[in-house]
């Protein structure tokens, strides 16, 4: 059983990471600030102007520690991978299924069922936690509409039909997301999803967390020998981790959306932590960014019981488990891919 190891986030600009023995040393302005044995970390994430020594990158690739480089604002730049691990037969089967549109639709459908079910849970929890009557009737209506969409997924649909159902449900869900913000309502207003660049603080936080989540899913896929680039719902596009994005659908509401909402509602982020670019894009400052990364890591440490396996595990381990369940399905050891649904 794989254990959920911690991720080292380096956000200090100008930091340098090198290998010393079997440990990673982080130095800032030529002063060593942190020394961690490689056996204790599962991934390294470098945000912004952070450099790694070639020997460290080599050692990480060999030990299966994912090293990713992102911009300060969380846009993905590069990842360092060694030889692709795992079974070439599994990957071939993945490509065969991805080429077969019917088989792809079956897996894509499972991912969307997971996503919609989790949307519903997030909304229901919001109604239960802080129901103001007006908002909760609105949310309740959306829950019912998402419910109806879930039922349409019982039939066999084509990929395009699936995308339609998913898109409709997502826009309905986002249409009430603003009602889930109960504190700091004037500073944080969500009027719809936008990105590249995000135009308000809520979108900036969502985008930033989604890209951290993508990295986690990408390494989960790679770690069990799947090709993170070849997806079923997300078709091939150069530079896009299609499979990671497919598997991520189930986790978006559970891990990220709820996290962003509670950061706002618990006043862990403030409006003054964000600045507006001349181009209209919104960026967060360094301390806000650190706060968000810390909260994201804490969220992954939370213990849950896996709905399909019935085992207790940290939330951060679930992506790895889901990738393995998918691999098991591709190998033919199970009839369907069971998506992660959160109760």
């Amino acid at each position, binding site marked *: 059983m794989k254990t959920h190891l*911690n991720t080292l986030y380096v956000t200090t600009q100008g930091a340098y990471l090198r290998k010393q023995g079997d440990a990673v040393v982080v130095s800032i302005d030529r002063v060593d600030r942190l020394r961690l*044995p490689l056996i204790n970390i599962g991934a390294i994430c470098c945000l912004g102007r952070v450099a790694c020594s070639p020997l460290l990158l080599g050692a990480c690739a060999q030990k299966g520690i994912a090293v990713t480089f992102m911009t300060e604002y969380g846009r993905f730049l590069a990842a360092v991978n060694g030889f692709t691990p795992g079974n070439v037969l599994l990957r071939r089967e993945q490509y065969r299924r991805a080429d077969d549109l019917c088989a792809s639709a079956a897996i894509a459908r499972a991912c969307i069922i997971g996503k919609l079910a989790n949307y519903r849970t997030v909304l229901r929890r919001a109604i239960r936690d802080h129901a103001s009557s007006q908002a909760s009737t609105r949310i309740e209506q959306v829950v019912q509409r998402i419910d109806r969409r879930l039922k349409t997924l019982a039939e066999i649909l084509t990929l395009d039909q699936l995308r339609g159902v998913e898109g409709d449900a997502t826009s309905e869900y986002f249409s009430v997301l603003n009602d889930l913000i109960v504190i700091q309502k004037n500073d944080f207003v969500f009027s719809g999803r936008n990105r590249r660049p995000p135009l308000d603080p809520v979108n900036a936080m969502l985008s930033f967390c989604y890209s951290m989540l993508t990295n986690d899913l990408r390494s989960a896929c790679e770690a069990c020998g799947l090709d993170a680039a070849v997806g079923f719902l997300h078709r091939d596009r150069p530079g896009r981790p299609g499979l990671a994005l497919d598997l991520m659908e189930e986790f978006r509401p559970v891990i990220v959306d709820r996290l962003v909402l509670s950061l706002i509602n618990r006043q862990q982020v403030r409006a003054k932590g964000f600045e507006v670019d001349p181009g209209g894009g919104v960026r967060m400052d360094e301390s806000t960014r650190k706060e968000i990364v810390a909260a994201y890591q804490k969220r992954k440490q939370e213990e849950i019981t896996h709905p399909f396996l019935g085992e207790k595990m940290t939330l951060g381990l679930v992506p790895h488990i889901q990738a393995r369940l998918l691999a098991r399905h591709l190998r033919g050891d199970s009839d369907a891919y069971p998506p992660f649904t959160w109760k």
Partner: protein
Amino acid sequence: MLVIVTYDVSTTDKAGQRRLRQVAKICLNHGQRVQNSVFECWLNNENFVSLKHQLLTAMLPDQDSVRFYFLGSNWQYKVEHHGIKPSLNLDDPLII
């Protein structure tokens, strides 16, 4: 599990000093130095076996000693720290 590793290596001769450096290096690869010859190591069984093997090969049983204290996974209630050099909790978010 959390394992505390402590050692005493005789440094009366050159070979002893060499052994001391070796032992320290092995410990550094597995955990964090909390005091000069005290290390806190977060290990699974596999890592512990490897650490133990390396240390036992490096030390001389008639001149040095190595001790392992097993604090398990509920170590938080068993460790108290006062003064300088507080240790890092590897379960907390690692952000620098």
